[in-house]
């Protein structure tokens, strides 16, 4: 009886040890490569052209919104933060991040809305609205060329684990997980298209298919629908967790917002 109990305790200890070491230093399954590497030459040229890149329209709009007064006090983002090129230089590299005030991991879009509602006392922007996409693109643009650097330890660990579970969970009528395509078959072809790794270092992206800008969550929802699974609503915690895992999975990939994707 005693030995069984002791064994159980030892087993539990071992499990905790394994779980502990995993959370501390997870191993990336593959060498990360930006989806830019899988693009056609025409789209690469478009992304590299800072004038013709249609995503820059949203970046411009975001720049206007940065200094546009909102709320009863007539304050703008700029009133507190000053020049975005200085104060927001590396902010986009850190999100999604743990928010002590919210008690959960939030992404950049949600942080923008938190600022709008909490500080400016203005109405929150709808997820996927032109304004929210524009400001997210503008802030991410400030971090262009910097490596993604999200924290997955501490309180964000649970969120990270949920994101990882989501990534490897088979779903939908086609019974595919994210990993089935983007990890096991990255670089192979699906019809005429090359399957990319599904890295999100260029988001929000201008997508040819949508003919407009889209957030990470719109992309997740699109991918979920493509395997005939029920998509989650944009801004849901499931997608934020997945976003955190995806950002980490990209390792130190450089931010290339606004990216152009097919």
């Amino acid at each position, binding site marked *: 009886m005693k030995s069984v109990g002791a064994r159980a305790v030892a087993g539990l200890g071992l499990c905790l040890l394994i779980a502990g070491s995993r959370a501390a230093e997870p191993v990336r399954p593959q060498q990360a490569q930006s989806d830019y590497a899988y693009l056609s030459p025409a789209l690469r040229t478009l992304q590299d052209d800072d004038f013709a890149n249609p995503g820059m329209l949203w970046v411009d709009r975001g720049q206007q919104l940065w200094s546009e007064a909102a709320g009863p006090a007539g304050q703008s983002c700029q009133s507190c933060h000053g020049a975005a090129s200085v104060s927001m230089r590396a902010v986009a590299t850190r999100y999604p991040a743990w928010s002590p005030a919210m008690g959960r991991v939030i992404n950049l879009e949600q942080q923008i809305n938190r600022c709008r509602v909490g500080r400016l006392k203005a109405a929150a922007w709808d997820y996927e609205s032109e304004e929210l996409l524009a400001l997210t693109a503008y802030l991410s643009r400030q971090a262009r060329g910097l490596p993604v650097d999200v924290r997955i330890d501490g309180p964000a660990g649970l969120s990270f684990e949920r994101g990882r579970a989501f990534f490897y969970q088979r779903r939908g009528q086609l019974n595919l997980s994210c990993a089935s395509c983007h990890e096991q078959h990255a670089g192979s072809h699906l019809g005429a298209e090359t399957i990319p790794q599904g890295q999100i270092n260029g988001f929000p992206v201008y997508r040819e298919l949508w*003919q407009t800008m889209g957030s990470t969550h719109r992309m997740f929802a699109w991918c979920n629908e493509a395997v005939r699974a029920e998509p989650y609503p944009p801004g849901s915690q499931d997608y934020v967790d997945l976003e955190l895992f995806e950002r980490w999975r990209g390792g130190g990939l450089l931010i290339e917002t606004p990216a152009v994707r097919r």
Partner: protein
Amino acid sequence: MPNSRIKVPEQAKAGDKVEIRALIMHPMENGFNFDSQGTTIPVHIITDFVCAYDGAEVLRVQLQPGLSANPYFSFYLTATRTGPVNFTWTDQDGTITTNSATLQVT
């Protein structure tokens, strides 16, 4: 007024051919798309794009529903003398978007 981007060189020599670029944020709905409820999204396009240099029209384009969103134009004009380069986009409902820059000719 939709967001637009233009690129006109700041300076040019008389007789030079300079590249002009213009981009505007517009959905260019072609009338064949459906929303999530299955309702047809009506046609919503820009119908005219005009560029004028130093008071004279140098380019006029009539746009049709087959064009993709956020239409982008790139063309050349011959610099003659210092003057404004004006861009005008006309929406199908008559909304006009303008943007302008000055070309310095030396």
